[in-house]
């Protein structure tokens, strides 16, 4: 409370000093009975009043719209347009539009200056910004500040414009996926893709979902119902894959963190699975439980991956047991580990279920910045030793490693 008062006083130093001077002038004018000083005082007070009113009027009657594509890939440049509409008949002058692109690298806000907007006219501001890191962002309120024409009592007003921006992770593209499992499963409701050509058993029709090809559109049903419908077929099992993203530890800065690497790896693997029409599940940790996404579509999958954040929950034997419950008999499980605190013995339930486990260990300690204190003994070396002892297939990935190469290598183990 006191801080906010102090900061607002600090921001308005000029105005407070001028008000003080106006009061002082009044005292001097009264004491000396100097008529002109009353006039000077009145004009000074008038200037402050004008500044106060004018800055508020500059903001009044402004309508703001922000337009942008609400999703993009990490590293992609996104164009944002801000439309300022002046609903009044008077001109608006010198508006400072403060915009913060939430997915930018430094998170700094940019200021755009609008010289004037004529009455009942619009002005557009556009900018392009690189989407630095995957995630689900929401734009902070757009702040417009005006103090024209005198700069006193400049007034800023936040315009709340809800805008969610999803930045998908951009994992490296993998061409081939050698799989061994042969389990049978039925089509999941989450699965948007049918498998044309592989089975001819008609399952039914359902609503068309964005991103699907037009080949399987059921035209008769579409014409009858007035909306796009697609044919869905029963599918004979091909492969099944479970990907577990360990988000219990996230070390590093910006895009170079262990969790980011893990998410990118997951994105690559899930992308490949979608392309190959493999049934797959994505699992990650939430507070005290695991979260599963079964057989999503491409965009759904990316959106889910974009939303993964570091969790405080650590991997425990119970987590592995849950994973074992999720993974089907004789299927494949890819563990994308960021936390070295895993005991290979915990994997026993998976072995019992004959789940084929592949381990990608992201060496979190290698993601530490130069200045950060490294642990006395590398915990990942210890984990590596233990995994080797257990004869488990794994690949250790460090900061700066070529992820594509590492994934291909890891999958072929």
């Amino acid at each position: 409370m006191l801080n906010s008062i102090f900061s607002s006083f600090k921001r308005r130093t000029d105005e407070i000093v001028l008000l003080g001077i106006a009061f002082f002038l009044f005292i001097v004018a009264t004491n000396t009975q100097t008529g002109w000083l009353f006039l000077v005082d009145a004009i000074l007070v008038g200037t402050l009043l004008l500044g106060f009113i004018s800055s508020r009027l500059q903001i009044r009657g402004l309508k703001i719209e922000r337009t942008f594509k609400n999703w993009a890939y990490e590293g992609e440049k996104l164009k944002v347009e801000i439309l300022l509409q002046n609903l009044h008949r008077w001109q608006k002058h010198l508006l400072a539009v403060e915009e913060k692109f939430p997915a930018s690298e430094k998170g700094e806000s940019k200021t755009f200056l609008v010289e004037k907007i004529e009455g009942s006219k619009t002005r557009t501001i556009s900018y392009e910004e690189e989407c630095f890191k995957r995630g689900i962002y929401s734009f902070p309120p757009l702040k417009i500040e005006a103090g024209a024409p005198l700069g006193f009592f400049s007034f800023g007003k936040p315009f709340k414009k809800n805008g969610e921006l999803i930045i998908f992770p951009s994992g490296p593209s993998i061409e081939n996926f050698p799989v061994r499992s042969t389990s049978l499963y039925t089509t999941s409701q989450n699965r948007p893709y049918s498998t044309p050509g592989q089975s001819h058993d008609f399952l039914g029709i359902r609503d068309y979902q964005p991103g699907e090809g037009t080949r399987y559109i059921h035209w008769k049903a579409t014409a009858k119902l007035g909306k796009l419908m697609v044919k869905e077929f029963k599918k004979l099992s091909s492969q099944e894959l479970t990907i577990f993203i360990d988000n219990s530890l996230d070390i590093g800065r910006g895009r170079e963190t262990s969790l980011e690497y893990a998410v990118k790896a997951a994105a690559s693997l899930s992308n490949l699975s979608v392309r190959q029409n493999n049934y797959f599940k994505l699992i990650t940790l939430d507070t005290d439980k695991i979260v599963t996404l079964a057989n999503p579509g491409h965009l759904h999958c990316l959106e889910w991956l974009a939303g993964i954040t570091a969790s405080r929950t650590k991997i425990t034997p119970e987590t592995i047991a849950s994973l074992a419950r999720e993974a089907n008999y004789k299927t494949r499980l890819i563990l994308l580990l960021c936390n070295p605190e895993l005991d290979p013995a915990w994997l026993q339930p998976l072995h019992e279920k004959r789940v084929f486990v592949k381990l990608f260990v992201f060496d979190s300690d290698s993601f530490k910045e130069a200045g950060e204190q490294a642990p006395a003994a590398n915990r990942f070396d210890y984990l590596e030793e233990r995994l080797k002892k257990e004869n488990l297939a794994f690949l250790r990935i460090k900061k700066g490693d070529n992820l594509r190469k590492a994934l291909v290598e890891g999958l072929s183990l």
Partner: protein
Amino acid sequence: MSNKIIEAFARLRKKRLSPEHSIPLRIATLLTVLCGITATLSQEEWPYLSIWVIAGTIAGFFVSWIRREKNNWWIKLILAILMCWAFVDFMSNLLQNIYDPRIPLSYLLLWLQTLHSFDLPARRDLNYSLWTAFILMCVAGSLSSSMAYGAFFFVFVFCSLFALFYNYLSSVEEKAKVTLNVSWRSITSTILKTAAILLFIGGIVYLFIPRFHGLKIRPLPVSLQIRLFNMGEGQIKNPAYPSSGQSITKTLDFNSDAYHGLNPYLDLNMRGTLNRTVVIKMRSTEPVYLRGVVFDYYNGAGWQLSNFQVKSVSSANPPISLNLPYPGIHEVVQIFFVEHEMPNIIFAAYQPYQLYFPTTTIFYDQNLGLRSPIPLEKGTIYSVVSLTSNLPDEKIRKIARKKFSFPNIDLSQYLQLPPISEKVKKLAGDITKNYDNDYTKAMAVCLYLQNRYPYDLDIPPFPENVETTEYFLFVQKRGYCEHFASAMAVMMRTLGIPSRMVTGFTSGVYNPITGFYEIRNYDAHAWVEVFFSGVGWISFDPTPGWDALPLAEREEKSPWMISALINYLKEKIPPEITEPLTRSWQAFIKALKTFIARFERLNLKGKILALFAVFLTVFAIALFTIYIFLRTKKYGLRIAKFIRKLQNLPLKLSNGFLKPQEKAPSGPRFLIWQIYYKMLKVLVSIGFNKLPSQTPKEFALESVSNLGWEEINMLTQQFEEARYSRHEIDEEKVKESREILKTLDEKIKLRKRATSFEATLL
């Protein structure tokens, strides 16, 4: 240690603000500063300083612009040394006259501004320059006593608006890291609009700024002290009447440039009109009369001083204090700015007790008439603090009833009279026969003179060897202030009440803009002082149109500037216009006061407030209940809707004002409409008017049958198509319609010419 010094320097270097590159901002700031400087310089005669300061400031701004990106440590060093020198100079000037620091202060400010102009690399420095310019304007305002300052001030306002605008523009440009190319025309238009609004808002604020009694904080201003080796004898010396000596009783030649009453002898037979030259400008806590010469000896034709002896009083430093013979209760502070050469009379309200005067010694006579050892030159400033005994009428009445006197006071000289006719004595007796005390008697005589005798400056001279009072009261029966005052003083003396005649000035006209009472030559005045035991000398003014008790305590004048301005304007506007307005305003105020007084009489202050609060609460609850009731009932819905409409009314109104109004329809369809309406207009000029009852087709049929012009038909068809069809109308059709209208226009012109030619033939 050395590392620490280097670090400190590095920090300082980091703190350096980015240089200001905006040339318009620098020019606008320079103009504002120059305006402040010239306003200050114009208040005093500083020819050399003016050249140095103005040239130096311009050069300084130029150097600052050239070297804005450099460190300029050596310039800063030189400036620091020069500023120290300016400060030392200021202190030495201040010590010479500690009572009026305005001149040394403005001198210092001017130098500081000039020196500072050489080091203005950043915007913040330019801001400081604006501050200094503002302070200079304030100093100039405090020094100014004329309306010319207004011109400087308004130019200053315009220039500073430009400077503030560019300042803000530069700051936002820096924030956004862009440079806008704002057109000069756009800025000028914005500033002009801003200036107009600012003057409006500032004007309203000015009108409602309260004006309280000031001059509370001392010391008061006084001119530089003059050291005199010969103080003189303290006798009255009037430069406008050089032949007037110590006890001259002969008639002087009237000089319209100076009041003849400010001489040792006041000739009641002198005639003439004084000019309008401003002689004194005064700042005062109250509009009080300025006492000049007090006469106590009447010779039948004029008044003079009975005793020319004066006493002196000295003080090495102001103020010079005087012992008051009678108790005073109300303090009046006056600052005098002498605007015209005056006699060596120190004008002041009665009774002066502290003088801030430019000499170490002053003189005073037995009637407390003050004299200066030197004549009052133009430009002399002095201040006087007086303690008046201006009690309200009722209080004087009460005190005057009690008969107690001041010890050791010989009042016999104030009862002196030459042989006076019995008629005068009888008149005085008749006027006062119903009154039992001196005060009421004096008031009765004063009011009698005010009400029975008209004021007239154009009276013929009195005949030789007549007693002027008798002639004035019974023969001439009209006169001017000296005659009224003389008559009252004489009548008081016939009644045995001590009285004396006073000459001086009224408080003149108060100029609320400058804050000065402007006292002109024709504000010279004469009045009477009457002695009452227990009270002392009380001023009475028997001249018609003036307040009978000029120094009596009155109700506080309105503190608002607006009322002072109205009073000032009243002096300028003819009374035929102002009087009805004043009367109605006074009636309104009276009614209001009566209304308030009735409440006050009930003595229910606290209870009224409580009752009012209860009433408001009950009213609010009742209103809320009615509102709820109306909303729930069927018949109330309409009222509720109406209330809602009322609630939305301000919004609607504001939208109506603020939102853009719908534009007139445009496009080819509407252009064809316009062309058709033009055709109708030109056809009217030759007598074919389309009636409202006619359809376009009917009108076309009628006019074509008369005129035989097919163009009318064609345009009508095009109009009907544009008006009623649903398909698109293209630009080609508009062009076609225009061509048709052109042909039709030419035909109409030809027809008009032919008609006028026929008319000339006929």
